[in-house]
């Protein structure tokens, strides 16, 4: 099975839409470089990067040929894991690059991983037709709600991906595993 996934990696990577992620990376890099040049904190850019990159990674699950591939022996879960690995690795590298360019002390990649896992969990459990769209929107919605909601319980709950990212990552991963047969 691993041989199949190794052989499938290159064509799968070619099937992924990379342009949105590349565009986002470009914008984030410019924002960090400009922030640094102006001697301003780029914390907010890193938070935006976590949400944007997480959305991009989840969007990478979108497979236009999913119907044609619905009855192949390599399960949809394995194909999704392959796509996550292919899209997730450069997203993580981008995040580390942005982090290394910032001058502030980083909270680590926890928020990025937590938002990505949450988006994937939503994509796994959402109704099939719009699953990836809903999952990819989730990191952005959580980010926006955290910014918009007034300080309080709701804001605290929505912002767990920022304050307790590893717990969120663990719970979302469990949800993904529980929904693996969907």
């Amino acid at each position, binding site marked *: 099975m691993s041989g199949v996934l190794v052989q499938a990696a290159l064509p799968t990577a*070619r*099937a992924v839409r990379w342009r949105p992620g590349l565009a986002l990376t470009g914008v984030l890099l410019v924002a960090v470089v400009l922030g640094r040049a102006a001697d301003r904190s780029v914390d907010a850019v890193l938070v935006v990067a976590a949400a944007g990159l997480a959305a991009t990674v989840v969007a990478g699950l979108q497979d236009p040929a999913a119907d044609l591939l619905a009855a192949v022996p390599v399960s949809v879960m394995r194909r999704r894991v392959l796509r996550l690995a292919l899209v997730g690795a450069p997203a993580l590298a981008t995040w580390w690059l942005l982090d290394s360019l910032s001058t502030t002390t980083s909270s680590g990649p926890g928020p990025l991983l937590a938002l990505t896992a949450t988006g994937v969990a939503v994509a796994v459990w959402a109704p099939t037709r719009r699953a990836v769209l809903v999952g990819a929107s989730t990191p952005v919605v959580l980010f926006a709600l955290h910014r918009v909601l007034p300080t309080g319980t709701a804001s605290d709950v929505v912002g767990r991906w920022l304050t307790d990212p590893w717990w969120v990552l663990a719970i979302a991963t469990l949800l993904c595993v529980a929904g693996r047969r969907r």
Partner: protein
Amino acid sequence: MTTTHTVPGTLLATTGITKRYGSLTAVDDVDLAVGRGIVGVLGPNGAGKTTLLRILATVLAPDRGSLSLLGLDPASPAARTEVRRRLGYLPQSPRLYTGFTPLEMVDYVAILKEHTDTARRRREAASVLEAVGLGDRMHKRIRTLSGGMQQRVALAAALVGTPDLLVLDEPATGLDPEQRIALRSVLAETAARGCVVLSTHNTAEVAALCQQVLVMDRGRICWSGTPAELAGEAEGRVWESDAEEPTALRSWLTGPGTRRHVGTPPAGAALAVPTVDDGYLLVTRLAR
């Protein structure tokens, strides 16, 4: 791995399979037993053909009933994987990676069908593309191909790996008459060693291709038999005249300008030789 016991020679069998979407019963208590050959599934839009084919292709699990494909029960994950190794599936209106070439697309599907010998896999991908008449286009980008050619790429993807069970949802969509005839040869080859189940709205296709016909309506199989038997259902019940006929279940104006009727002919009516179309119309009207 779970195996099921069916009549010898049966490649596909279902017992009481049912699939519901909320309050809609898409497939209702369907029993089937199919051996080697080509089976055509006819039926009006919304009859449940696509849902039935998705179940037969292991894409959807039925809510109720049992299923045996190639002697295996796909309810078990290991058996389902084994069935999929020997299965080709063409969904309705499939989408492809338009940046790929047909060869790359079919090769990719072959990889996911666990064909890991690269040289052999490439040869087979090229061979199925030749078989569907795309030998000269296999290195062009899919986005530059017509709709009919893209449909043939998807068909080639279903054919790769010489499947024993081929499930095709409206395979002739977008194909011109020449391509349809080529498709018949390709399917006949597969049917010689296994089972082909296809859904279609085209009764002429069924008459030319299939050994067995199933007519579905409202999720149920309301008729099954050979194409000749389906045409025979309308024996003595098809006539032509110049005027409207109140006793007809269905009437339509033909090319030469006469009216063709299906139903109970009046005394002295000029009976016509029935076709599969007539039989289908009669069967689906009577089922309602």
